[in-house]
């Protein structure tokens, strides 16, 4: 049975500082992950599992971080690309216990290209190994001081790549030690019920067991909207979330 409900979430403002997500153990890959995906939520759930889909309406798009102005350089720096700031992440705040089981590590990548991390936002499950290839001709030095994962890959040149395993759920803010305007987000989940929106804000999360959930919308460093939805067995819920 298929149930389609078009819902529009009210503007709720920014949510409290630390949200919690119920940790689940299944592994899937976000749509933007380049490496071969592991088992998805749909694989692990009964056939009657449902889905949520819809659109994230981002009212005020974030601006790219500018270069730190400096007066000590004798000339302007080389041009760079700007990050794609149109994408957010939609995820379930809590997940069924089965989602915590049978976690299998996956692989993802964030490229360093024209002094920009590509993609700007990556969502993965715990255990995923993230590669950081350097596609520029200059050095980069990827690092993070986030509680979810602290690492420093050091300086490495064009054509080289280093990787980090994301072994704890949370938000990992990634920077370059040499180019302070370079930054990216990695959202590490303990369950597979999340999706990175496309450039139009569209998302879809499959394989959700029937039940009532809170769907959260994350954008530019914060969870900014949420909505309670009831997913019917084998059904689909469609709605729009507005990020003020």
């Amino acid at each position: 049975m298929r149930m389609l409900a078009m819902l529009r979430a009210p503007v709720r403002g920014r949510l409290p500082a630390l949200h919690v997500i119920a940790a689940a153990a299944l592994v899937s890959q976000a749509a933007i992950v380049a490496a071969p995906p592991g088992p998805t939520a749909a694989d692990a759930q009964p056939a009657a599992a449902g889905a949520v889909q819809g659109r994230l309406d981002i009212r005020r798009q974030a601006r790219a971080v500018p270069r730190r102005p400096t007066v000590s350089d004798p000339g302007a720096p080389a041009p760079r690309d700007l990050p794609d700031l149109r994408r957010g992440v939609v995820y379930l705040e809590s997940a069924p216990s089965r989602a915590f089981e049978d976690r299998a590590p996956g692989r993802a990548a964030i490229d360093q290209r024209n002094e920009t991390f590509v993609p700007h936002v990556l969502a993965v499950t715990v255990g995923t190994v993230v590669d950081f290839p350097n596609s520029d001709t200059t050095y980069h030095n990827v690092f993070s001081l986030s509680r979810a994962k602290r690492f420093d890959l050091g300086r490495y040149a064009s054509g080289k790549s280093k990787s980090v395993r994301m072994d704890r759920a949370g938000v990992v803010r990634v920077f370059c030690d040499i180019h302070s305007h370079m930054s990216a987000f990695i959202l590490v989940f303990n369950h597979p019920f999340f999706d990175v929106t496309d450039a139009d804000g569209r998302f879809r999360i499959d394989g959700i067991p029937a039940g009532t959930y809170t769907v959260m919308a994350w954008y530019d460093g914060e969870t900014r909207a949420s909505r309670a939805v009831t997913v019917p067995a084998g059904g689909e819920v469609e709605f729009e979330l507005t990020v003020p």
Partner: protein
Amino acid sequence: MRVLALVVALGVASPLAAQGPPTEPVTFGEGRLVIGGEATATIGPDDPGFFNYSDYAFNALRNLRVHVTTEVRAARHLQFLSEFRLDRSGNVEPFALYARIRPFPDRRFDIQVGRIPPTFGAFARQGYGSGNMLVGTPLAYQYLLSIRPDALPARVDDLLRMRGRGWLSNFPLGNTAPAPGLPMVQSYRLDTGLQVHGVAGMVEWTGAVTSGSLSNPRVTDDNGSRQLAGRVVVRPHASVAFGFSGARGGFLRRELQASLAAGADVADGVQTGVAVDVEYSVGRFLARGEVMRSAWSLPAVPTLRLSDPLTATAAIVEGRYRLWPGVHVAGRVERLDFSTVSSPTRTAEWEAPVDRVELGTGWSVVRNVQVKVSWQRNLRSGGRVRHDTIVAGQLVYWF
């Protein structure tokens, strides 16, 4: 359906955090105005040997400095850059203020006019706080020598009497009042003039015409002389860069002429500097080395009888290793050496040679807040205080 109670914080930024101090440059007008800043608090003990004084009033290891940098993108071809600094003096001063013209927007060729970035040497671009792997500033860019722009020794003995007293020197010709001398290269003040800069493949070049000299950058001209400076940086690989610098300009003030005998011309007071530097980095390791030589030629004061210019040679080697994310250790070894002069009674270096070793560590509390601590040992073969050991700390915040 049972929902497992195991919960994990996602750790998203809080609205409260968003209202705190900025962590990134602030922009206005669709990015046409970009504002960045840095605050540096440096705490150290007394420095009785004045090893870290950048002038008489300020110990560089006891300072609170705030600077705000702005970049105005007026047009595709034109930017205005400025940096205003506030330090212990309580005065807000324009450290840099210049226009950057890019005649061909698609080519890396710039013309800069005003109070412009340093052309000579490598360290001057590393900065005081966040760019410096340690707390102290290298001797060549900070340590005050006895030589002054407004006073001259009448005899070699006058020069030798001031060995190790650059923090407050005095000479009988010109301004006889005690005052701070000059460093080899002044990194706390920028020069004023015109600069051209270009990048072609692995080669970056810079040339400048300014009103001051390496030791004594000026906003307004005080001697009718112009300094010519140039620098070439070659990067054959991302891991290594070689720099070559040169500069030549008058450093004595015009007012000094009245104190000189006939035949001695203040225009002969010229500082000439050359430097070679190298930077190498791989993985978590970064090393820099720089050797520079500066020569000050003096007017022909009959009683001084100097056949050669006074020269100073500086050698700096520094390195940093990142132990863990956000934690580094660093060290710097340096030496300042000087040419010898002879008086009827003695022969010695005209300034007292100085050696310094500095070891330190830094911890980034968050990306843009860093705490640094360093231990510094200074040795000088002259002056009232011959050696000094200093432990200093520094807190740096930038956005």
